[in-house]
């Protein structure tokens, strides 16, 4: 098992693939959540979006995939471009057809459909033959053998982890070029987290799928990503090559739980320490 990501294919720091410029998002007409966020995902790269709870990571992803409308959120400023075209007013359906798909935080499987039906709906936007569909399905099962076992169970009755796999698998069925992954590791066993990131890397390497992933598990995320952004309070406060970030002292302390001479036991962390904030 390889855990080294340095070997990401050398893509020229080419024309921006997905780029977000100065986006501002307001919920419910009054709650300002994103205060001008700009970031870029070059083609064929894995970009991690890191940050504490409530920093606005999910909101950023949703503003790209245009799922905000359903939550009474609004992009009030800024622009979003994918492959040179403005996509900020497109429907999610158009976006999926263009190859941008989001895996939402918190699983969101279709509870009353079986696992297999869940996966099949993932291919809704593709007009493909039965055999191709079968192949895609097999591919997903290959990545997630556990799903194959539970293929006939209603998704609502499967365990949290199984649902997470189902959600990711479902997105893969759409054969996307750009996946927005929201907290893929949440609630997954360590082994599976590792597996999922391997799958991410695989897809990235073999099928040139680009990723923008919002993660809390900074350690793993920085290990697999090429580039990282760190968000606080609706703003990007730091960015850089993943390697560089992983070695940054602040990041080490606040996001990796490493201080000075390595990892500190959770038992020994002091309660009264103050957290440092950039900006804001």
């Amino acid at each position: 098992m390889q855990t080294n990501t340095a070997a990401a294919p050398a893509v020229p720091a080419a024309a921006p693939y997905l780029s977000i410029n100065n986006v501002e998002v307001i919920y419910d007409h009054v709650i300002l959540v994103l205060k001008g966020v700009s970031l870029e995902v070059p083609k064929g790269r894995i970009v991690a979006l890191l940050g504490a709870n409530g920093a606005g990571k999910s909101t950023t992803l949703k503003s790209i995939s245009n799922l905000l409308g359903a939550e009474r959120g609004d992009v009030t400023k800024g622009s979003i471009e994918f492959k040179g075209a403005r996509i900020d007013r497109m429907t999610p359906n158009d976006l999926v057809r263009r190859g941008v798909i989001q895996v939402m935080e918190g699983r969101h499987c279709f509870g009353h459909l079986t696992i297999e039906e869940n996966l099949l709906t993932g291919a809704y936007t593709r007009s493909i033959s039965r055999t191709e569909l079968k192949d895609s399905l097999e591919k997903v099962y290959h990545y997630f053998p556990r799903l194959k076992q539970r293929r006939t169970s209603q998704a609502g009755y499967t365990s949290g982890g199984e649902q997470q796999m189902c959600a990711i698998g479902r997105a893969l069925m759409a054969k996307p070029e750009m996946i927005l992954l929201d907290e893929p590791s949440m609630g997954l066993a360590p082994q599976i987290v590792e597996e999922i990131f391997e799958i991410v890397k695989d897809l990235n390497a073999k099928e040139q799928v680009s990723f923008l992933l919002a993660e809390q598990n900074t350690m793993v995320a920085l290990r697999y990503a090429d580039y990282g952004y760190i968000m606080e309070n609706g703003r990007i406060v730091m960015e850089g090559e993943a390697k560089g970030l992983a070695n940054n002292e602040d990041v080490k302390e606040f996001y990796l739980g490493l201080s000075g001479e390595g990892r500190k036991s959770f038992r020994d962390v002091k309660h009264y320490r103050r957290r440092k904030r950039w900006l804001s």
Partner: protein
Amino acid sequence: MMMNDLIHVAPDAQLAVAERRIGGVVLDLQNISLSFGGVKALTNISFDVREHEIRSIIGPNGAGKSSMLNVINGVYHPQEGRIMFRGELRQKMEPHVAAAQGIARTFQNIALFKGMSVLDNIMTGRNLKMKCNLFQHALYWGRAQKEEIEHRLKVEEVIDFLEIQDIRKTPVGRLPYGLQKRVELGRALAAEPSLLLLDEPMAGMNVEEKQDMCRFILDVNDQFGTTIVLIEHDMGVVMDISDRVVVLDYGKKIGDGAPDEVKNNPEVIAAYLGTSH
């Protein structure tokens, strides 16, 4: 039995209580089997939980960890097996009875009451302890008001403890995930439980937040002597803070013991930990 009491211990006096003594068995599960239709969620599982300890349950996804908690607090009723709680054989019962016996819990997929504020959510945790009736509530005068304020005081202590003073009045639906988890813990704590079941309390948090959460869990355990059953996927956390760990896999128990023991159990490594840890 040591009833933890949030009120009568002044903040600095609390430290004095902080002496962890692992006591006798409070909860003893014997040969529990549970299945749903064809799916066997738990097969013949036995383990026990001792007074004041932090007992973790780990295992791959779908292993049956959450189901185990559901069995303990009466949401699921196992087809086979015996449950002894505080020396008494547990009959089939409803969750609210378990709550009345002092078992509180948090949920894997946050189960806060979305339409209510943080304060109200935590206040519901004290529901069992409030004695006024509907008519007194309608009047909101005299006893009812006094009671409300009494309990509000206790809830405020939980709020202080979890450091969520500034979001008291916020509707929980608007909070970020991590804070919601914290509020959920608060709701469970408000009930002053003797046994606290935590289902992945740290999922979706970054290291810093996990550190905070660990601190809270350890403090609860230390200061109030609350027995804790914890499900968690972060091995760092589990290995650092638990006293004993049970490992489940596909509904079967494959390991049980102190963290170090479990960590080196080859079966556990194969099924769950993988080699990278």
